[in-house]
C-alpha cells in the first residue's frame, strides 16, 4: 500500500513541475468553461435567440401596418423591411423576390410576405375559414426559426390587431345572430375604437399567445434545401472536418518543435534549406494531408449518408483546398509560437475548441444569436463552413464563394507570415 502511495506521490511531484500538464488538467477546462458559458449564456440558446426576419408588406393596409409594427416590437424578432439601411426613410422596401433571395443566400433564416387583401380577411375562426394566408419563406436547414416565427405571428395577430379581431368577431355575431341593430353596431364600434387607441410601450408584447391553433393562416414554404435528402450531413461533414483538420495540422506542425528539440532543425538550417523553404515544405505537406482528410470525410458522407458530393465537385475542391491551406498555416503558426509539445497541446486545444464553438463546427451558427453570428466571423471555421454551406446547401454558383475563399486565403497568408516571423527565433542566433 505504501508503495502505491509512493507511486501516486511521484506523479504528483511530476505534475507540479510540468506546467503545461498542470494547465491542461486544471486551468484549461475552467478557462474553456468560463469563456463558453459567458458567450453562450442566454444569447446562445436557440429558443431565446433573436431571429432575423425579412417582412414584405404587399397589403399596406392599416391592419397590415399595425401587424408589422407588432412584429417589430417583438423582442424575439429582428425585423428587416429594407434591403438597404433600415433607418433610411426613403430607402426602398423588400420585394417578395428579394426576400426569397435573402433566405436563399442565408442572410436571414426566414421571410414573411403579407399578401394583398390580408387586412380585409386577416382573421377567421374555425377550420377552412376564408382568410388570406401569410407566406413564410424558410430555410429547411434551420428547423427552429419558422416555428418560432409562426408562433410569434399568431401572438402578434392577437395583440396588435385587437380591433380587426373584434370586428371579425362582430361580423360573425352579426351573421349568425340574425343581424344586429344599428344601435348595437354603433356601440360595439365605439368600444372597438377604444381598443384600437394606441397603448403604452410593451402593450403589444404583454399578452401571452392563446389559441395557438392559428388565428392567421401561415403557409410555410422551404425555399432552400427543400429537395435535400439529409440536411445535417453537410453541416457535420464540413464542421467536424474543419475542426479535425485544425487538430491534425497543429499536431503535425508540432514536428517542428521536435526537430528543434532534437537538434535536427539546426542540422537542416545548416544545409541549403532555409527557414522559409522549410516552412513552405511543411505547409505543402500539411495542406495535402488536409485535402485528403476532407475528401475522405465527404466521400464517406456521400456513400453512407447521402451527401451530394458528386454534383458539387468544383466547389468542393476549391473550398477544400482553401480550408486545408488555412488550417495548415494556422497549425504552423501555433507550432512556431510554442516552446514544447505540451505547450502546443494546451494552446491548440484551447484555441481550436473555442474557434470551433464560435465558428459553428460544434453547433450551427444560424442557430446562434445575430451578435454571436457576427462574432463567429473572427474564426476561420465560420468562413470555411459558410463556403461549404453555399456550395452544398444553397447550391449557389461557384463565384458566390469568393468572399469566403478570399478571406480564407488571406488568413492563410497572414498565418504563414506570422509563423515565418515567429520562427526567426530558431534561425542563427
Amino acid at each position, binding site marked *: 500500500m505504501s508503495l502505491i502511495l509512493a507511486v501516486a506521490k511521484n506523479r504528483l511531484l511530476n505534475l507540479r513541475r510540468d506546467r503545461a500538464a498542470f494547465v491542461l488538467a486544471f486551468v484549461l477546462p475552467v478557462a474553456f468553461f468560463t469563456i463558453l458559458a459567458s458567450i453562450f449564456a442566454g444569447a446562445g440558446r436557440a429558443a431565446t435567440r433573436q431571429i432575423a426576419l425579412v417582412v414584405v408588406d404587399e397589403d399596406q393596409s392599416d391592419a397590415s401596418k399595425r401587424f408589422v409594427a407588432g412584429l417589430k416590437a417583438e423582442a424575439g424578432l429582428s425585423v428587416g423591411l429594407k434591403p438597404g439601411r433600415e433607418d433610411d426613410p426613403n430607402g426602398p422596401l423588400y420585394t417578395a423576390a428579394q426576400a426569397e433571395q435573402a433566405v436563399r443566400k442565408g442572410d436571414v433564416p426566414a421571410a414573411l410576405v403579407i399578401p394583398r387583401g390580408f387586412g380585409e380577411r386577416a382573421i377567421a375562426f374555425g377550420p377552412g375559414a376564408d382568410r388570406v394566408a401569410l407566406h413564410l419563406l424558410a430555410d429547411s436547414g434551420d428547423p427552429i426559426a419558422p416555428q418560432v416565427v409562426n408562433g410569434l405571428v399568431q401572438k402578434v395577430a392577437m395583440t396588435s390587431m385587437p380591433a380587426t379581431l373584434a370586428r371579425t368577431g362582430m361580423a360573425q355575431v352579426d351573421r349568425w345572430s340574425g343581424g344586429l341593430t344599428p344601435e348595437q353596431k354603433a356601440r360595439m364600434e365605439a368600444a372597438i375604437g377604444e381598443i384600437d387607441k394606441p397603448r403604452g410601450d410593451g402593450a403589444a408584447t404583454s399578452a401571452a399567445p392563446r389559441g395557438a391553433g392559428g388565428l392567421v393562416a401561415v403557409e410555410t414554404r422551404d425555399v432552400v434545401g427543400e429537395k435535400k435528402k439529409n440536411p445535417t450531413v453537410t453541416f457535420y461533414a464540413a464542421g467536424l472536418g474543419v475542426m479535425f483538420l485544425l487538430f491534425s495540422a497543429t499536431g503535425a506542425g508540432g514536428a517542428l518543435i521536435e526537430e528543434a528539440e*532534437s537538434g535536427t532543425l539546426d542540422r537542416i538550417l*545548416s544545409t*541549403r534549406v532555409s527557414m522559409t523553404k522549410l516552412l513552405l515544405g511543411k505547409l505543402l505537406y500539411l495542406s495535402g494531408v488536409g485535402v485528403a482528410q476532407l475528401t475522405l470525410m465527404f466521400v464517406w458522407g456521400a456513400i453512407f449518408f447521402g451527401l451530394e458530393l458528386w454534383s458539387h465537385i468544383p466547389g468542393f475542391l476549391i473550398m477544400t483546398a482553401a480550408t486545408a491551406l488555412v488550417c495548415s498555416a494556422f497549425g504552423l503558426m501555433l507550432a512556431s509560437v510554442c516552446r514544447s509539445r505540451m505547450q502546443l497541446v494546451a494552446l491548440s486545444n484551447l484555441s481550436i475548441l473555442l474557434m470551433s464553438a464560435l465558428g459553428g463546427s460544434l453547433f450551427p451558427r444560424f442557430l446562434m444569436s445575430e451578435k454571436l453570428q457576427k462574432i463567429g466571423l473572427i474564426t476561420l471555421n465560420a468562413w470555411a463552413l459558410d463556403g461549404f454551406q453555399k456550395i452544398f446547401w444553397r447550391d449557389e454558383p461557384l463565384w458566390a464563394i469568393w468572399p469566403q475563399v478570399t478571406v480564407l486565403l488571406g488568413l492563410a497568408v497572414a498565418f504563414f507570415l506570422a509563423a515565418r516571423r515567429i520562427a526567426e527565433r530558431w534561425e*542563427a542566433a
Partner: protein
Amino acid sequence: MPATALPLEIRDVSKSFADRRALDGVSLELRPSEILGLLGPNGAGKTTLVRSVASRVRPEKGSVRVLGFDATDDRARAVRGWVPQEIALYPLLSPRENLWTFGRYQGLTGPVLDRAIAESLEWVDLSDRADDKTDKLSGGMKRRLNIAAGTIHGPKVLLLDEPTVGVDPQSRERIYAMIGELKDRGVSLLYTTHYMEEAERLCDRIAIIDHGRIIASGTKDDLVRQTVGARQAVTIDAAAEIPAALAGKLTALGAQRDGLQVRVSVQDPAEAIRNLLELFHAERVPVRDLTLKTPTLEQVFLQLTGRELRE
C-alpha cells in the same frame, strides 16, 4: 573558390548572449587535410565557435570563411559538413531515408544522390540495417549514421562536435577509423572533444579555448613545450623510511618528498634515473616502484585553464 583559401579561417570573432561573452576575439585557422582538435572546459565557447562556422550563430564581430566563402554563403554550405553533438536524425525513418533527406537538403538529386546513399551506408557499415527504423539501431550505429548524414554531400571541411560521446570502445574505434578515412580523402576536420586521449591520438594540432579565447594552439609537443616544458617526471616509491642524509641529497636535486614517495622533474631521464637509484643504493634504502612520465595534454590543460577537462 579562391585557389589559396584555407579550409577554415576564423578572424577575430566575438559573440555575446545576453550579458555573457561566449567568444572574445577568436582567431583560428584550419589547414588542408588537417585535423584540428578544439579543447576546452564546459562553457568555454567551443560549441558557439563550431555553430558560428556552421552558420547557426551570427558573430557580432569578425569573419568566418570556409574555403574563402563567408560561412552563410550557399557555396560555403556546399563544401562544409556538420555533425552535431546530438543524434540529429529522424528516429522513425530508416537510415536510408535519413540519408535521402539530408542528401536532398544538400542539393543532391537522382543517380548522384542514390550513389551517395549507397556509399555512405557502406562506409558506416549499415547496409544490412539500411531499412530498419533508426530508433531501433544501437547507440554506436546512430553515431555513425549521424556522421554519414553530415558527410553525404562530400564536404571538404567537416565540423565534428564530440562524435564519440556515449559510445562503447569498439564503436569508438570504428569512428576513429572513419575519421582517418576522411582525412585520407583530403577532408579538413575541426574536432571538438572531451577526451584528451582522443585529441592526442587523432589531432594534428590542438587549440585550447577558455572564456571565449584561444589560449594556446599548436601540435601536442608544441603545447607541452610552451606550458609544462619538455621535462619528464620520475616518481620513486621507497620501501623503507628515507634517512635524513638521503633526504638532504634528494632535496638538493630539486625533488619533492611526500612520505615514502619522491618526485623529481628531469631533463635527461636515463642519467637522472641512474643517479637517483645510485643514491638509494648507497643509503641502502630499498626501492619498491619507479615510474617515468612524459607530460600529457591533461597537464597542459590543467596548467592553462586551472581546470580538469571534464570538470
